[in-house]
């Protein structure tokens, strides 16, 4: 007799989701699905708006990573204008993008995930959160707050606003930075480098404690995709796409983002509003890929900054081919924070970083624009079509988290098969399913809880819908 376990109404999220775990007649886990139950509708309601509004409009897609949308959207608008933006503007866009990656990664690692890592997956839910961390690991909380603050202040100092800044614009950025701003950020680099270095130190030493999770948290073969430079280095702002197999070999290299429709398909599943992108040449069944920190470190030959390169070399030794376990998204996030800090320092020390020439101006010269960048959670695509007056006729957005939809579903299934004992649902089981989702750091779960705590209810129903068992976390 088949049964279904529902994790209903994952509450306190930007966007809504639930998880269903379907049991077969023998009571074993047969399937699991992550249902995104909310429609955002951006692709529809931007139609009819002038293209230059798109950065500000699409920034409202997210309160954690609006800068990512500003970057990708502005790049699409750059193409509509047919401009090459000034090199200083490129550098400034890179800096603010990295500032956001730092603060977003710090949020996930320190606020959302570290309670599980340091207080235990089976810890008392009332204490397995930031307050429990305040008691047991106050220095780690301070470190997380400082890193997040640094990233937010980079954004605020450049763009004059922490959330939804309007500084990144079609053609470049709205204003240059001055020496005071540059020097303020540079003066904080040693402190935050110290923080991330010691975080990596304790995290790597504790990896042995997580071997079971490394084995079972979305640990499977998949493709990995991310932007790289011409030399194959880690890239978050521009570059071309590289696809790597689970064995670590390059399947496709230097794919032009403008041609994404030739290699990325978007499928729709009936159980979720989140689209399921896949690598087209291998079809829907074989084309599942992952994006984000884990994928970016799998596709990159090197980072291009000294300390991050050392860490990357160590990271690549985790597996013989690509690093497969999604638990290692946590490790990858820390390396990206380190890279982001080092790279910001490099960029701020470039001789023309204070140049006044930060924006190119033009009218509509192309009726189509595609902007691609790396958001904290993965590759982000903005594709617009306009008429001759620059009015949006259509828009296609492939959101970073959406790229991971297939892998996240498979990961939840893997965890459910390993941890779920339907005869008795436990809170620890529920938390492990959450933790798999949290490792991907999707925009769904990252908004669910700032304290590592997701309110959930699991119901086990028989085929007639009769309630057999229930487990609720407030």
């Amino acid at each position, binding site marked *: 007799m088949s049964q279904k376990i529902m994790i209903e109404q994952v509450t*306190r999220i930007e966007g809504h989701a639930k998880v269903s775990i379907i049991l077969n007649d023998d009571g074993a886990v047969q399937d699991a699905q992550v249902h995104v139950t909310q429609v955002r509708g951006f692709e529809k309601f931007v139609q009819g708006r002038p293209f230059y509004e798109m950065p500000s409009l699409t920034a409202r897609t997210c*309160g954690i990573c609006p800068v990512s949308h500003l970057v990708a959207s502005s790049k699409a608008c750059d193409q509509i204008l047919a401009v090459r933006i000034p090199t200083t503007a490129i550098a400034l866009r890179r800096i603010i993008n990295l500032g956001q990656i730092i603060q977003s990664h710090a949020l996930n690692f320190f*606020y959302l995930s570290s309670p599980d890592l340091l207080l235990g997956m089976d810890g008392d*839910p*009332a*204490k397995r*959160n*930031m*307050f429990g961390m*305040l008691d047991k690991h*106050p220095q780690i*909380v*301070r470190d*997380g*707050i*400082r890193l*997040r*603050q640094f990233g*937010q202040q980079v954004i605020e100092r450049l763009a004059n606003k*922490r*959330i939804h800044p309007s500084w990144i614009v079609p053609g470049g950025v709205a204003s240059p930075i001055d020496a005071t701003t540059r020097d303020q950020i540079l003066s904080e680099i040693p402190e935050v480098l110290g923080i991330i270095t010691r975080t990596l130190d304790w995290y790597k030493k504790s990896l042995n404690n997580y071997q079971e999770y490394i084995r079972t948290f979305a640990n499977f073969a998949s493709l990995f995709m991310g932007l790289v430079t011409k030399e194959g280095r880690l890239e978050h702002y521009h570059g071309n796409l590289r696809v790597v197999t689970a064995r670590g070999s390059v399947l496709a290299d230097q794919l032009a983002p403008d041609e994404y429709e030739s290699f990325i398909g978007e499928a729709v599943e009936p159980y979720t509003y989140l689209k399921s992108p896949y690598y087209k040449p291998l079809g829907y069944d074989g084309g599942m890929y992952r994006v984000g920190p884990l994928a970016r470190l799998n596709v990159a030959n090197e980072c291009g900054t000294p300390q991050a390169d050392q860490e990357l070399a160590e990271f690549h030794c985790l597996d013989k081919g690509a690093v497969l376990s999604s638990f290692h998204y946590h490790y990858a996030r820390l390396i990206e924070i380190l890279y982001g800090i080092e790279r910001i320092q490099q960029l701020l020390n470039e001789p023309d970083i204070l140049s006044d020439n930060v924006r190119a101006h033009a009218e509509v010269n192309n009726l189509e624009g595609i902007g691609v960048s790396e958001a904290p959670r993965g590759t982000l695509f903005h594709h617009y079509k306009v008429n001759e007056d620059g009015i949006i006729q259509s828009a296609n957005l492939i959101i970073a988290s959406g790229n991971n939809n297939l892998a996240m579903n498979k990961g939840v299934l893997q965890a459910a098969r390993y941890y779920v004992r339907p005869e008795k649902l436990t809170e620890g089981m529920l938390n492990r399913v959450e933790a798999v989702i949290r490792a991907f750091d999707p925009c769904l779960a990252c*908004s*669910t*809880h*700032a*304290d590592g*705590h997701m*309110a959930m209810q699991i119901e086990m129903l028989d085929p007639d819908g009769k309630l057999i068992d229930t487990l609720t976390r*407030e």
Partner: protein
Amino acid sequence: MKILILGYGNTLRKDDGLGVYVTLTLAALTLPGGVEICTYQQLSPELSPVLAQMDHVIFIDAALASNGEKPGAIKTRALQPRTSQPGSITHHFDPETLLAMAETLYGHAPQSTLFSVTAASFDLEEGLSPEVTAALPVLIERIKEYLFRLPETVST
């Protein structure tokens, strides 16, 4: 004395934007020396080290109606550091929790006061309701009086 006026809220949710509008108004006025003003969309843990450096913090926010209060009612209360229920620290990080974090992590929680106005609406709209708008001049005067009554501010 270091004083921070912290207005917070979402200006796209009608009266929830009260804190933002009030701080913008205060920023244009002549206030005692040592007063800083800042605006946030929501309270978050990154504010705790900022608070820990202050002697006094004035929080400004819209409030849900309770005890039969009418929209536009102005309330003032002193705040104490207090850890809220873990489930509430998401989009509703409250001032008391922030103060508790400042005290636990950085060794100091400033004296703090919350000025609030009972909201008429939290609908998805910009602008304040007529009731809250009518309360603004009185609220701003009360905040100014409060500031000038604080020790050490009169002499600056």
